[in-house]
């Protein structure tokens, strides 16, 4: 498929990228130290050379076969290069901060406003998202278990619950604000509503995932309903449940942040993003976005790690490393 001949000399590729990175760093610091250095032909020639080096280095890295670490390394190096050129070009071209602040400015802003962003994090993530996510997922799971023995209700609820994924549920935010006030409970309520249905649908699907053969085996053991549920059906539903937990983690963050766009007290990541955007304080907006992005990725990674521990026997987990 690939036209590159597989390059099996990792040292060469590594040397390529490392040299380029080292050069880049030197270049970055020298250009940062003297922002008033003329952006002359020499500067642009050096930048162009660096870009070519970067592309070649990443190509070499990407061509490496073997360890999965190479793939990870490639993506990481690519990300670093993007950051680097983002910094370099925004400084060199003097891009207005409103359009695109340099990454370094975002880091500085993150550090400066750490207490503010910390309280925003507590307000949005620890209170609204966590409470809403736990309640929504718990309710979805509970309702799914409760109607497990009622196929009539399932047949009625399932299509409706599936259709809710096409509805902009986050629009209930203004109503939630009227009912539960401006503080975090209204955001948690939106999150509950958004996370409930995916969990319900997934759990119901998961409870049906056990094989007929396995169920008949449990039946031949004279296992009770509860025993079959506990020993067979819930374990085989785990991948479905975890998939819903992971989807819901992202949905919950989106729900809480967007609900804060509709109106919130004076803290919260969504509030920070929307108000600082109207005040054109873009580095802080980007810093708040960074916090929410990191939160989303960490939540996903934690849930994925938990899934590997809890459902280690399942083929979908065993297949991965």
């Amino acid at each position, binding site marked *: 498929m690939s036209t590159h001949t597989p390059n099996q000399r990792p040292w060469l590729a590594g040397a390529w990228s490392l040299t380029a990175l080292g050069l880049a760093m030197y270049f970055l610091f020298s250009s940062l130290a003297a922002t008033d250095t003329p952006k002359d032909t020499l500067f642009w020639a050096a930048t162009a050379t660096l870009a070519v080096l970067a592309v070649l280095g990443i190509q070499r890295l990407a061509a490496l076969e073997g360890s999965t670490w190479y793939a990870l390394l490639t993506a990481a190096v*690519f990300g670093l290069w993007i950051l680097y050129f983002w910094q370099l070009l925004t400084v060199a071209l003097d891009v207005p901060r409103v359009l695109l602040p340099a990454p370094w400015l975002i880091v500085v802003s993150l550090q400066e406003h750490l207490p503010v962003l910390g309280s925003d994090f507590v307000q949005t993530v620890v209170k609204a998202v966590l409470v809403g996510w736990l309640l929504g997922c718990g309710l979805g799971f509970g309702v799914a278990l409760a109607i497990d023995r009622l196929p009539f209700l*399932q047949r*009625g609820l399932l299509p409706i619950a599936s259709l809710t994924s096409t509805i902009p549920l986050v629009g209930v935010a203004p109503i939630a604000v009227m009912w539960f006030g401006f503080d975090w409970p209204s955001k948690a309520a939106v999150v509950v509503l958004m996370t409930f249905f995916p969990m319900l649908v997934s759990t119901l699907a998961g409870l049906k995932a056990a094989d007929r053969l396995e169920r008949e085996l449990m039946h031949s053991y004279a296992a009770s309903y509860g025993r079959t549920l506990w020993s067979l059906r819930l374990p085989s539903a785990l991948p479905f449940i975890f998939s*819903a937990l992971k989807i819901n983690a992202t949905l919950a963050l*989106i729900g809480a942040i967007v609900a804060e766009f509709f109106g919130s007290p004076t803290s919260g990541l969504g509030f920070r993003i929307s108000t600082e955007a109207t005040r054109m304080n873009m580095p802080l907006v980007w810093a708040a*976005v960074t916090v929410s992005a990191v939160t*989303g*990725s960490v939540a996903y990674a934690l849930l994925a790690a938990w899934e590997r521990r809890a459902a280690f026997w399942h083929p*979908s987990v065993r297949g991965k490393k």
Partner: protein
Amino acid sequence: MATTTSPLSASWGARLQTQGLPILVILAATLIAWYALTVYLNAPGAIERVLDPKGPWGWRDLVDATLAMQRPVLPAPHQVALDLYSSLTDWPLDSPRNLLFHVAVTGQSTLVGFAMGTALGLVLSVCIVHSRTLDRALLPWIVASQSVPVLAIAPIVLVILGSMGFAGVAPKAVIAMYLCFFPVTVAMVQGLRSPQVIETEMMHTYAATRWQALWMLRLPAALPFLFPALRVGIAAGLVGAMVAELPTGAQAGLGARLLTGSYYGQTVQIWSALVMSALLGLALTAAMAALETAVLGPRRRA
């Protein structure tokens, strides 16, 4: 990976026969619960404002009052339905009092953004499948972005496009675009890779060029992966378009309608805008499902 059951995946005819009654029962129960909740939630306000807290009134007066309040805590279903109906019939289509006007505004930016996002996703996924460098360097970031609340950068996009002089549809469409773009790209990369080795090798023995292999083998094989992503994408695009309408000074669109409703405490207006946006979401997804059936036939759905 385990997947949740996708909406609209079974044929509607078969569903209606086995599920029609249960769904009707659930909907009826919801309606009854809604009315009960209306009476319960509006009772304090009704007693205070409509009925005399001390004066004589029976429970019938209370129920009547709670179901017909000007600014109820929870409007009764028939109030929402009446508001919807009057907004659709009493005002011309180009009036901001008509909800279809707002549906058109939001739907337009959703569809424009959806078309752009899908096109971008298709092009990028073809590039990723044919370039090992992009596959290794770029794809992990696109996949990772699915666990990140990308909608959070909507205000940034609005500010950037606003300072560049874009207004109207463009900023909303851009937000809808990047929300559609991620699922389409990820699903298409998966789909374009779905042909078996034996099939790609056969194309090779026919001396098919890359373009021929793409056009005759990979793209058709990817279609069952594409459509579920389109359904996800258009729903996400609608949310994006509505969120993008929030800070624009709230003139037109379902999102703006929700916001003005909440500013002025017009609960009935909020609910009818909410119902309308739900209907728009359902209609857009149903259109995608219809397109899927038209392209793939009823059987080949993923």
